[in-house]
């Protein structure tokens, strides 16, 4: 009998600790699959965030470093500069990467640092209990925007991928979602391209992964998936934002 589907060995057997309907588990599984398929688990170092996915080092079978809130890109820089032949990736949520760690991610991208960043965007601060994130949509109610996000007060949802794609140092940037089998296949291909961009020395790579947060959105997993597709994807369009050093949206 032919095995058509199994747990990648790079994904440890420990059950995920994420809430039902959260896509952190899916995202980490895809990263583990790509690491395994590229055969780089023995020389890959991950850098974890602070937030719901702080325990990522318990799930993926590679070496890990976890530091302070938002600083993963700087930590990854220190690791990569010390060990240039290793594959280094960071994994962060939207509060971590697009609020407290904005300076670090922008400069990592601008230096063309040979690392790959995974950015899980669920439009809310997850671990702290559902406060407004920089990616919270206009009108979206959170613990700190009880009347909905008002641009006059809170500014606008932050499109980090687009922001980084205009920098010379970024080489591959894509935004993906995991709400449909087709999206999952596309996401995995993007993750593979991101790692290859790093391994081929082309520059910085980032994959933005839209994820539902049913717990903090106050929805069932099914409602959250629908809300993500109806509300988030129109504002955060899916696709490759930048490929191999040319901005696909601006360059003819």
């Amino acid at each position, binding site marked *: 009998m032919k095995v058509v589907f199994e747990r990648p060995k790079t994904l440890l057997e420990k059950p995920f600790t994420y809430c039902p309907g959260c896509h952190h588990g899916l995202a980490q599984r895809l990263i583990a699959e790509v690491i395994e398929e590229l055969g780089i*688990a023995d020389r890959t170092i991950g*850098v974890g965030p602070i937030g719901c996915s702080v325990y990522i080092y318990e799930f993926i079978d590679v070496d*890990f470093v976890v530091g302070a809130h938002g600083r993963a890109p*700087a930590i990854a820089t220190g690791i990569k500069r010390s060990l240039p032949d290793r594959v280094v990736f960071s994994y962060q949520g939207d509060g971590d990467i697009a609020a407290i760690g904005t*300076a*670090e991610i922008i400069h990592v991208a601008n230096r063309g640092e040979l690392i790959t960043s995974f950015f899980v965007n669920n439009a809310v601060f997850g671990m702290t209990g559902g406060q407004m994130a920089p990616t919270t949509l206009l009108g979206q109610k959170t613990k700190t925007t009880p009347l909905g996000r008002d641009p006059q007060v809170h500014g606008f949802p932050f499109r980090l991928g687009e922001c980084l794609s205009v920098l010379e140092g970024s080489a591959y940037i894509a935004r993906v979602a995991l709400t449909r089998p087709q999206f999952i296949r596309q996401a995995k291909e993007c993750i593979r391209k991101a790692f290859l961009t790093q391994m081929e020395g082309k520059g910085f790579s980032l994959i933005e992964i839209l994820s539902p947060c049913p717990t903090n959105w106050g929805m069932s997993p099914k409602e959250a998936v629908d809300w993500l597709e109806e509300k988030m994807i129109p504002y955060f369009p899916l696709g490759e934002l930048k490929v191999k050093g040319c901005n696909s949206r601006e360059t003819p």
Partner: protein
Amino acid sequence: MEKILMRGNEAVAEAAVRAGCRLYFGYPITPQNEISEYLSFRLPQVGGVFLQAESEVAAIHMVYGAAATGARVMTSSSGPGVSLMQEGLSCLAAAELPCVVVNMSRGGPGVGNIQPAQSDYFQAVKGGGHGDYRLIVLAPSTVQELVDLTYRAFYLADKYRNPVEILGDGMLGQMMEPVTFREPEFPPLPPKDWAIRGKGSGPRKWVVCLDLDPKGLEALNLKLQRKYRLLEEQETDYDTFGDPEPEILLVGFGTVGRILKSVVREGKKEGLKLALFRPITLFPFPKAALFEKAKGVKGILVVEMNLGQMLEDVELVVRGKVPVFFLGHTGGVIPTVSEILEYVHGLLKEEIRV
């Protein structure tokens, strides 16, 4: 051995390279820019990495990442920059990662100014960032000692898996003195089998600075405290100078130490029995040695380029058994030999009473 005339900032940079430091991350701030400028050409000569970070916050976390790989790594800054690094220093201490941080301190608080001061003593010695942790803090008073302590800083960082701060000041960083680079011989260090280098064929490892389990986090804290006690037992260092049976014991660190040496010499000419006690390790503080040295003196005069920070540690050591006096300037004002001597004469005239 050849003597070279070097500025303090360049000497500490050269000593770091000779001590095996191969990565430096930093952000410009006066009065320590010569450290970065020197390492920007010197590190590439030995296959090392110099990287100018976008902020001190980023710099210290780059240090965190590089330290996690087991490399010898350094950063340097001053006053406001070191304040920005406190988050990372707390994480480095929690993750037990070795690194060296040089603080050529300047006048504070706030942006303050760029003149030499010692007002970062509390920040360096008492923890600085959040949580129950300590840095190893070394306080050189000459450019030669800055060189020697730089070698020792990297050794102690590796030996104890703890960040080390070299607490100098703008004067020490900017002054030029002849130095020799005497490579010290330290006992061998244990292998860095904890370093994160990719798991290879072995089991995977991780370096983190968190533990969400209360018992686990308390256990980490107790382990750190045992390390700090061991440091107090094994690594305290100080210098003494002057009369073996002084009436007044002068206590000062770093730049002030060299001023107090002149006070002891000048005082002797005027018939004063003075001695200097200069802590070289500010943490661990040389408590036992100072306690012994304080026996039989009429009084202790603490002199600092701040308004009384190490003073509190001196008072804790003597516990009211000897009267402790203080003379301090801050904001870049440097105490002079004559004003300190005048203060000492005043103390003796008033017939110090316990």
